[in-house]
């Protein structure tokens, strides 16, 4: 049986922000790297009992994926929304 990790799901204008409290160790590397200052500490606790990251200013998120890239624990997953086709 493979291990399962909880997931918190947030919607931003350009995509979806997923974070797992079972993986986040609250290092804060993503918070400092975010170019639009979306991330801050949450009330939810992570794997070491410390506050995890939450996209508190989610309306500023551009779904660039830098937080996912620098996360050493693979706790963050960014899903980009597909652009609405012009014909629709």
């Amino acid at each position: 049986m493979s291990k399962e990790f909880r997931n918190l799901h947030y919607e931003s204008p350009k995509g979806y922000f997923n974070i797992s409290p079972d993986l986040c160790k609250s290092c804060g590397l993503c918070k400092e790297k975010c170019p639009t200052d979306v991330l801050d500490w949450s009330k939810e606790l992570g794997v070491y009992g410390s506050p995890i990251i939450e996209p508190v200013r989610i309306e500023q998120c551009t779904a660039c994926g830098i937080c996912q890239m620098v996360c050493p624990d693979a706790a963050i997953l960014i899903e980009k929304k597909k652009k609405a086709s012009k014909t629709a």
Partner: protein
Amino acid sequence: MVNKLAMPKSWNADTKPHKFCPGCGHGIVLKILGEIIDEVGIQNRLVFGVDIGCSLLAWDFFNVDTVQTHHGRTTPVMVGIKRANPDLLCIAYMGDGGGYAIGSQHLVNSAFRNEKIMAIVVNNCNYGMTGGQMAPTTLPGQKTETSPYGRDPETMGSPTLGPEMVAAIAPAGAYVARGSIGNVRQLKRFLKKAVENQIAGNGFSFVEVMSSCPTNWRTNAKQTWDYVEKEMSKYFKTGELRTPDEKREA
């Protein structure tokens, strides 16, 4: 929904969250390496060798065959495996203590013989696992447990420039580069080229990665990034030092 999609498929999800400290650069390097293993599709013919030090915590990191060796002896063990079975791909994963202090003889001689393996040295400017003592790569003026007044180059020497050393002696066909966790896309490009150089069988592939150690540097996230991107990059320059296309007399 299960948040496993951010993990490379080659990661062993049962052992996650991994054993590295919060903010450790090893996680970033191993994530990039995992993505490359997935993209190139080498999971079933890869042997991953880890050294003594923090790097040994990666012994159950991937779903690949892993061997953990003694101080700095990862390179010769990988060379032996590669010579016995040339179809395998061998990656020696070391810290700066294992790679440069205790294992520099093996690193230098393997590079000189142009062995067809790949070595990754993760440089975090100190000995992380034993509590932050001074390492060969400690920056001038940096305070560690054994250099409490800062490293003095007069008495304690200057930091080891590993890729420059390997690039100076390696014969044609070698690939040598230095990346940083501050520039993930560039680092991924370097590591991928090194893996492809080994698959092509051109020669020794060597990548040094400038990494972080927030626990022993006693830095918060902002100071950690500043140290990696501003202080370390003053001394250690990122870029490719040798590529296999380069002509060179043997």
